[in-house]
Structure formats: structure tokens, C-alpha cells
């Protein structure tokens, strides 16, 4: 078990009891795509709402910048933009044209409105999408319905309206608690809007579950600034915190301006340090570090994202969005015109999710890559059943030096950490995989920090 699941410091309990509160983290499920068993139909849907006031300087997502109209009321300024309504119409057409994977009526357990800045979309249009999803796939009795919201794009009324529609989780895109940094990122809001937004969210009746997004390793960001942001975050008491390490992407403004590890970006060591500070502070504040960049109060994992980490299938709708259905990953066109053309094809039946026989190697790589991002780690027994014992043993052998150096942690069925020596013995044991060592995970923070290295090592074992 994660140490932070039983916080020693429990002076910051959730303000209100969460609606659903599993005693343990979600169990590691059989992998949806494993050839050994048919993948269960999707119970999650991602909906992309791409509109932003302007593009942040680090962003390379498929977004539509509406242009500056921030002087107008945050509620209806952009809300009347015809491009939004047009897009939502297109989105509804996509939903309508999508065939449910199952006829048994597996209802959606999670819906995630991501962006872009979904909070720029008028609640009435969000309602239309939710209604369409409900009509098409059904919603479970208590689904998790998340929406991303940016400071400065909503007021209390708008949020109340959204909650009234069934939205029960908000992901607030704060990113930093310093005006200078927000400006340097090209964010469309300042610190004042951040505080206002936090106030609105925390005061909202009927909304217990909300997340704060932060970005570390921003240009000119100091350790002090980062600690300040973490302090403000903890003070705001979100149930969930996402800490993203800034990625410098090609084709972005930041890509032109900065080189990773080179001033004004923090050095590799400093950047690693920011990550460690977040891990330490948030853990001490009672958050579980359940995935490389995700922290939550017990029971407040983002169920939608957990779908991804557990390699389960999910629907996706909208510009540039990626779905995973019947073992096939598909990314929709990132340009509006092409997306519109694609929706049309879908409607006339000229496009379908061909059940592509993704190779076993690819599946094994997906499973390793996704599960090692999480604190739950890789379920060796399940992996062995799906992909074979010899591959599992090779994988374990590859990780052995890192178990010894502490980057990788081995755990038994009860999720108790084992000594490296136990691991060695277990590997030599001829019997069933997982007789003693049942899970391996990357350590927090050192193993998580080197996840790319460790996962690519595993890739080298799976597909030499």
C-alpha cells in the first residue's frame, strides 16, 4: 500500500465526505486489451471542448483561440461566439453517429470535459452534450462528471448551473500562484482570478470534488515560488492536485524560446528537486501520490484518468481527441475542417473503428507504460497470464538492479514492500509468478522521476 494512503498527518481531512469512498485504491483490473480476454465495453467518455481565449505559450494541444474579449463579462463574453455553438453541433453529430460498443447498455461511469477551456462553453451547450451522451450510452447511477475550468472564465452562477446539470468534479487550471509566471506562460488570467476562482469553487454547494492543476519547471520559477504555489494549493484544500512538469514542445512559443535544462528553465537537478518538493509537501498534507503527476485525498482519484492508467477502453468525442475502443487507439483530426469531414464520413458509415489486431508486444508495452505511471504499479500475475511467464521474468530481471538501487519497489499480494533479496529469490523460484512478488512499481519520487528511462528499458525487453 502507498504510505500516503494512511496519512500520518491527517490534519487536513476532506471538508465533506466524498460521495463514493472506496476503502482502497481501485483494484488493478485485468487489462482490457489483453488478447486473453475480450475487452469490456467502454464506460468512460472524453469530450474535447477546444476553445481558449488565447493559446498558452507552452501549449500544443488542438485548441481554437477565440481571441481576446476578456474585458467583457466572464460569463457570456465568449459564450455567444457562434464558433462554439457550431462546434458543439458537430460534436453532437459525432455522438449521434457513434455506435455503442455494447448493446447491453453499459452506462458511462465517467465523463470528462477537457480542453481547451471547457468553462468557456455555455452550460446550456454542455447540457446538450451530456444529454446526448446519456441518451446514447446511458449514465450510471453516480457517474463522475469532470470539467476543466480556467480562472476568469466562470462565476458562481455558471458553476452552479454546471453542477445542476450533473457536473460533480472540477479541474481548475491554476498553474501558478505568481502573476509574473502566469504572464510569462501567456495565461489568460492573473493571480486575482485564481483566488476568485478558488473562492467560487470552494463555496459551491454540491461540489465536493475538485482538482487544482499546477505546472512546475516554468521559466524563471524558483524553489521559493514553487513552495509558495504548493502552500497556496494545500490551503485551498482541493481533493485532488495535478502537478505537471513543463514539457517544452516543438512548434510552441516555448519551444522557440527555451531549451530544457538551460536557463531560464531550471536545470535537470533543480527541476527534479521541484518534483521532489511537490511529492513531499503534498504527501505530508495528506495527498496520495497515485500517479506520476496526480495526487489526491483518499478516495478522490480521478476515476476517468484511472481508466487510462488501467488500459481500459474509453470513448472520445471532439477535435483531436483520442479514443480506445475494441483495442484500437484512434486520434481524431486536429484541424477543424478535417474533423468536420471526418464526422461526415462517420455519419454516412464511411468510417468505422476497424478492430485492428494490435500486436501482443504493443499491448504489453501499453500495459507496462501505463501501469508503471501509477502507484499501484504492474500486476505481475496478470501480466504473466496475458503475455507469458518468460517475458515477465525478463522484465523482472531487467528491473532487478533498480530494485536494489531503490528506483523500483517490489510488493507482495498485500502490497507490502519486499526486500530486494526476496525479489531475487522469487525470480529463481520455478513456480507461479507472483507467488511472493505480486506487484512492481516505481518509487516515489526517484523512480517516478526516471520513469521514461525505466519504461523504455522495459520496452527494450518486450520489443528488442
Amino acid at each position, binding site marked *: 500500500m502507498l504510505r500516503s494512503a494512511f496519512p500520518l498527518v491527517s490534519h487536513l481531512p476532506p471538508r465533506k465526505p466524498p460521495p463514493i469512498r472506496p476503502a482502497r485504491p481501485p483494484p488493478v483490473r485485468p487489462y482490457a486489451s489483453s488478447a486473453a480476454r475480450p475487452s469490456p465495453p467502454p464506460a468512460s467518455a472524453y469530450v474535447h471542448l477546444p476553445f481558449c481565449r488565447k493559446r498558452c505559450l507552452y501549449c500544443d494541444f488542438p485548441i481554437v483561440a477565440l481571441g481576446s474579449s476578456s474585458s467583457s463579462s466572464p460569463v457570456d463574453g465568449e459564450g455567444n461566439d457562434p464558433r462554439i455553438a457550431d462546434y458543439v453541433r458537430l460534436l453532437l453529430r459525432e455522438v449521434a453517429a457513434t455506435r455503442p460498443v455494447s448493446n447491453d447498455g453499459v452506462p458511462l461511469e465517467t465523463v470528462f470535459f477537457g480542453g481547451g477551456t471547457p468553462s468557456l462553453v455555455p452550460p446550456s451547450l454542455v447540457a446538450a452534450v451530456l444529454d446526448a451522451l446519456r441518451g446514447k450510452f446511458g449514465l450510471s447511477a453516480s457517474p463522475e462528471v469532470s470539467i476543466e475550468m480556467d480562472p476568469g472564465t466562470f462565476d458562481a452562477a455558471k458553476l452552479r448551473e454546471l453542477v445542476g446539470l450533473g457536473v460533480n468534479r472540477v479541474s481548475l487550471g491554476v498553474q501558478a500562484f505568481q502573476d509574473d509566471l502566469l504572464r510569462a506562460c501567456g495565461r489568460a488570467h492573473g493571480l486575482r482570478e485564481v483566488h476568485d476562482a478558488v473562492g467560487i469553487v470552494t463555496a459551491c454547494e454540491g461540489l465536493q470534488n475538485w482538482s487544482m492543476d499546477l505546472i512546475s519547471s516554468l521559466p524563471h520559477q524558483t524553489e521559493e515560488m514553487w513552495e509558495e504555489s504548493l502552500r497556496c494549493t494545500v490551503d485551498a484544500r482541493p481533493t485532488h492536485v495535478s502537478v505537471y512538469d513543463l*514539457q517544452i514542445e516543438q512548434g510552441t512559443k516555448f519551444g522557440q524560446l527555451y531549451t530544457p535544462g538551460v536557463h531560464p528553465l531550471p536545470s535537470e537537478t533543480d527541476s527534479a528537486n521541484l518534483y521532489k518538493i511537490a511529492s513531499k509537501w503534498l504527501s505530508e498534507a495528506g495527498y496520495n501520490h497515485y500517479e506520476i503527476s496526480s495526487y489526491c485525498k483518499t478516495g478522490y482519484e480521478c476515476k476517468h484518468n484511472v481508466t487510462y492508467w488501467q488500459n481500459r477502453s474509453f470513448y472520445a468525442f471532439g477535435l483531436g481527441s483520442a479514443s480506445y475502443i475494441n483495442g484500437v487507439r484512434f486520434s481524431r483530426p486536429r484541424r477543424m475542417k478535417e474533423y468536420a469531414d471526418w464526422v461526415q464520413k462517420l455519419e454516412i458509415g464511411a468510417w468505422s473503428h476497424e478492430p485492428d489486431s494490435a500486436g501482443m508486444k504493443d499491448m504489453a508495452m501499453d500495459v507496462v507504460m501505463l501501469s508503471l505511471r501509477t502507484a499501484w504499479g504492474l500486476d505481475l500475475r496478470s501480466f504473466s497470464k496475458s503475455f507469458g511467464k518468460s517475458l515477465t521474468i525478463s522484465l523482472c530481471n531487467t528491473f532487478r538492479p533498480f530494485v536494489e538501487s531503490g528506483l523500483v519497489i517490489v510488493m507482495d499480494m498485500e502490497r507490502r514492500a519486499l526486500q530486494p533479496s526476496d525479489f531475487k529469490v522469487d525470480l529463481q523460484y520455478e513456480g507461479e509468478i507472483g507467488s511472493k512478488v505480486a506487484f512492481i512499481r516505481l518509487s516515489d519520487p526517484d523512480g517516478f*522521476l526516471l520513469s521514461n528511462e525505466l*519504461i523504455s528499458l522495459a520496452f527494450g525487453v518486450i520489443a528488442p
Partner: protein
Amino acid sequence: MAGAAALRRSARRVIRPDEYTFSRTLQHAERLLSSQASPDRGGVLGSELGLYPPERIRNFSIIAHVDHGKSTLADRLLELTGTIKKGHGQPQYLDKLQVERERGITVKAQTATMFYRHAPDESDAPNYLINLIDTPGHVDFSYEVSRSLAACQGALLVVDAAQGVQAQTIANFYLAFESNLSIIPVINKIDQPTADPDNVKAQLKRLFDIDPSEALLTSAKTGQGLSQVLPAVIERIPSPPGKCDSPVRMLLLDSYYDEYKGVICHVAIVDGALHKGDKIASAATGRTYEVLDVGIMHPELTPTGVLYTGQVGYVISGMRSTKEARIGDTLHQAKSTVEPLPGFKPARHMVFSGLYPADGSDFDTLSHAIEKLTCNDASVSVTKETSTALGMGFRCGFLGLLHMDVFHQRLEQEHGAQVISTIPTVPYIFEYGDGSKVQVENPATLASNPGQRIAACWEPTVIATIIIPSEYVGPVIMLCSERRGVQQEYTFIDAQRALLKYQLPLREIIVDFYNELKSITSGYATFDYEDSEYQQSDLVKMDILLNGQPVDAMATIVHNQKAQRVGRELVEKLKKFIERQMFEITIQAAIGSKVIARETLSAMRKNVLAKCYGGDITRKKKLLEKQKEGKKRMKRVGSVDIPQEAFHEILKVSNVK
């Protein structure tokens, strides 16, 4: 002398434009090969060859500093005599070059026979048979340049009218001069606006004591002055000496392997005559062969059934491999004893290096490529070896650094083999306490902590001759003493130029000595060397260790006094080229169990992709796959991944001062 020639080539090699020469030469050769029967190429039947006694034969070569117009001049002479057709376009040659390359190195044969009617105005003017014996390309990488000159009695010394005498002009001049060749100075490219033939004449006078009136002024481009060239060849170059009545004796100039015909030898007939069906023997191997085909290169192989005294042509005699055809060997009438012609020396491999596939899985490709290549370059020795760091590979012996470089290049270009080579080394001799001796061609094979005491070690040396403008004497003396040289001679050859002779350990000059020499003398130094004795030296084996594990492919043998410095530079270089890994890496240089240099590469701190947004994992997966591929290209010692560049980079420090 084998070593000297090798170094001479090494020396030339480091001047970049030589590669250009090489490719030009290939084109040139291609031109020769591609020219089919020309209408006026005269009779070449065996009976007609008999019409050319030695006094009607001239054998010459063209020597020049790179880019002074040697190839163009050769082309013009061949056109002038109708040997090749005029106006063969360059692009065609390039296309064919590709084909030639695929076939191997058959292009390296550069001898052409021309027929020329001297003084055509007179009705009874005699015809001459003129052989242009060139060693282009060859000059760079085959092992006996002077052997080709040995078949000549004269040389055209071509000098660019604008650039004047250059370093290579001097080296080439002395090469020809030492071979007792008649030298015809040709001041070429006189059409250039900056041409200054009078100045060049003065230089020739001053440097070589050449009478200014002897110089021919030409432009191979416009054709100006070209008509004087062959008359000068006939008038000023003596006919080949040789006894027509003696049993046949010939010098083997070159050989190559042809898939259909087998080994084709280029020979210069010194005495007697060679007929198809004759039995000949090799002075070097004692083996006998029957002459299956004999003829001239006119310019392609043209059978004549016979070659007479003084003539130059080809022989096909059923040799199975070019290893049997040793360049410089004397072939002679079987069952007769002859005095071997001067020139034969077995190839001495003075530079050894391990060659490994850059991608571990490519061993078979490399093996195949080496096999094919050595088919036409018998001067490379090849034995299999295994390295813990690099896997299976080959230990190859070369005549010099250039030879090695060209071999690499051809492996990569012609055979698509990607090669990692280990630090070149020279053959050392180690003597143990019990009196037993070993020759060490691979430092890794020498025990780091030998059970027995090493009583003594020896290393090969050379006598180097360096000619430089006098203002550079100081820095050159400094360089030589840094390289452990011992001065033998220091004289002035004229008011401006000094001659230095040094005995230098071969190890000190095999990698970058000539580069260094050129750079401190603004390119004016000419440098040559000949093999000398082994000398006793205080040598030690230096290991490179990564996290305590020795990297066998990086072991070197160094002079004790230099070990510290070399070790320091090596570990520093490695620290730069080995990437940070998930654990700390110590990089050490050690002699026996004593660590003499150490660097620590701290562990990587962070390599994480935080975002995995909206379930779109494909991009992230691609990145990780790319990372995986990157790891695959690394060589692993223990748990440490070493990038291939590290192996290349340490070559550069291996010869640190």
C-alpha cells in the same frame, strides 16, 4: 620501406583534397575503361608489338600536387593519341563509377598504352609506344607507390602556374628523383589570369635546380602547349633498359581480382619477352603459373599474345587470389634462376585496429564485407577477435593510418558496413621474466596484472624526414620532442628550407602527427619516414574501467611517462560522451591495479513525461520507443551503456602529446 610508403600515404591522406584526387582518379580510370575501340587506335597485334623495340618505347608517369591538373593532362594526352575518344561527358563517368564501385576496385588499374607518331611531318617518322604508368588512388592506399615509378624512366612534374610549387610537389619530386627518373617540368594552367610561369620557373630552379628553359608551358584546359608534351617525353626520357635476349623477367606493378577472369596482374617487362603459354614463376612465393592471356591496356585490356622488353601490360595466369600477386614481386621464366628486381618487400603491418560492427547484429555483414574487400587488397591482415564491449569483430593490420581509413571508408561506402574501430596500435614486443616474448597487436590481450614480471618491452620506431621553411624549425623540434623523438640530423637545404631527421616511435606518429605538423607549419612541411629498429621503451598497459569493469576495447599501451596525461584526457573525454544514467558511473584509467585518473558521472536525476493527456498515449509511447531504440545503439559494459561516439572520440585522444 613498406612502412615508409604507408606513411607517405598517411601523410598525403590527411590533406583533405586527396580524397578528391582519389575520386577524380576513379573517374579518370573509368574514362579509360569506358572508352571502347577508337577508330584510329592503330595495330596492336602481337606481331606489331614486335615493331617497338625498347628504343621506341617510353614509360612515364605524371606527378603533381593535388589539383594541379594531373588527371586532365592525362586525359588530353590519351585523346591526343586517339587512345580515348574526345568529349566523354562527366556525368556518364559518374554513373559508371557507381557500377565500378559495386564491382569492387577494378578501377584501380591506371596504366595506358598509347601509340604516337613522332614528328608527323616527316614521311618516315617513327612510331613510338608510350606507356603512361599512373598510380592514382593507388598512391593513397596501396603499399608500394615507388614500385610504379620503378617501371618508369621519366616523369612529368606538373605544377600549377598560379599556385607554384607546393608541399606535395616537393615530396613527389624527390620520390621521382630518388628513382633516377628524368623529370620534365610542366607548368600547367597557364590560361589562368593569375598564372605566373616565370615565378614558378624560378622556384623550380631554386628548389630542384631545374633549368628554366626545360619547363613546358601548358594549359590542359585550352590545349595550349600540349603538342610539346609527347615530343618532350620521347626526346628527354630514356628508353627502358633491359636485355631483349635474356629470359623473361618482369616487375609486378599491380593486381586486382576480376570476377570472370580471376587475378589480373599489371607488369613491366624488364628483360626478355613474355608469350601466351609461357611458364612463369614468382620470385617471392616460388609458385609457377602458365600465362593464359597477355596484352596491353589500350586503354581496356587488349590481348596481344606477347609483350616485349620494356613494354607494360597485363598478364592473366590463373592466380586465385591477389594474395599470390605481391606488388613489387619479380615474375620470371620458370625453372630459371634470376636476380629478383629490387622492390619486393612483404607487407609489414604497422598499424592494428579492431573493427566491430557498429550495430551488434551486423557481424555477418561486416564479415562478408571484409572478405570481399580483402579480395582486392591483400595488404590487410585479418583475424577474428572478440571484445566483451563490442562483441565479435576483427583485428586488422594495416600499412598505415590512411590505409586503415580508406579500408573503413570502403567498408562503409561500398559494402554498407557500419564500423566501430578501436584505438589503432602498433606491434609491441613484451618480454617476460622467463625470457619468453610476445608480440602485442591488441592491447587487451596483454594481461593487466601479469603473473610474471615483464622484463622489457620494445616498440617500433621510424626515421622521419621533415622538410620545412626555416621559420618553422622551432615549433617542429618542439613537436618532435613531445613525441619522444631523437634528433638525428638538422641541416639547411637552401636559404629558406631546413631538413630535420628524427627517430620517432611509430606509435607517436600514427594518428595525428602529420595533422599537427601541417598545422604548425601552415601546410608547408613535407614529411616522410622509413621503418627503423625496435627500441626498448618503458611501456605500460592502461585500462579504462567503467564502474570497476575494464572496457577491453579501450585498453591502450602507452609510454609510462605519458600514462598520466593520456589517462586523464581519456577519462575526461569519456565523461563528456557517456550520457548520465540511472546510477552514478565512475570512469577510471588504471595501470595494473593502480588508478591514475578518475572521473565521476553523477546519476541522471529526471527523465519523466508528466503529461499523458486526454488518454492520448500514442505520442508518449512513440517517444519512449525512440528512447528504447537509442539504448539499443549503445554498447554495454557491465551495466553501463556506452554510445558509439565514445569509441570514435577516444581515437582522437589516443595520441595525446
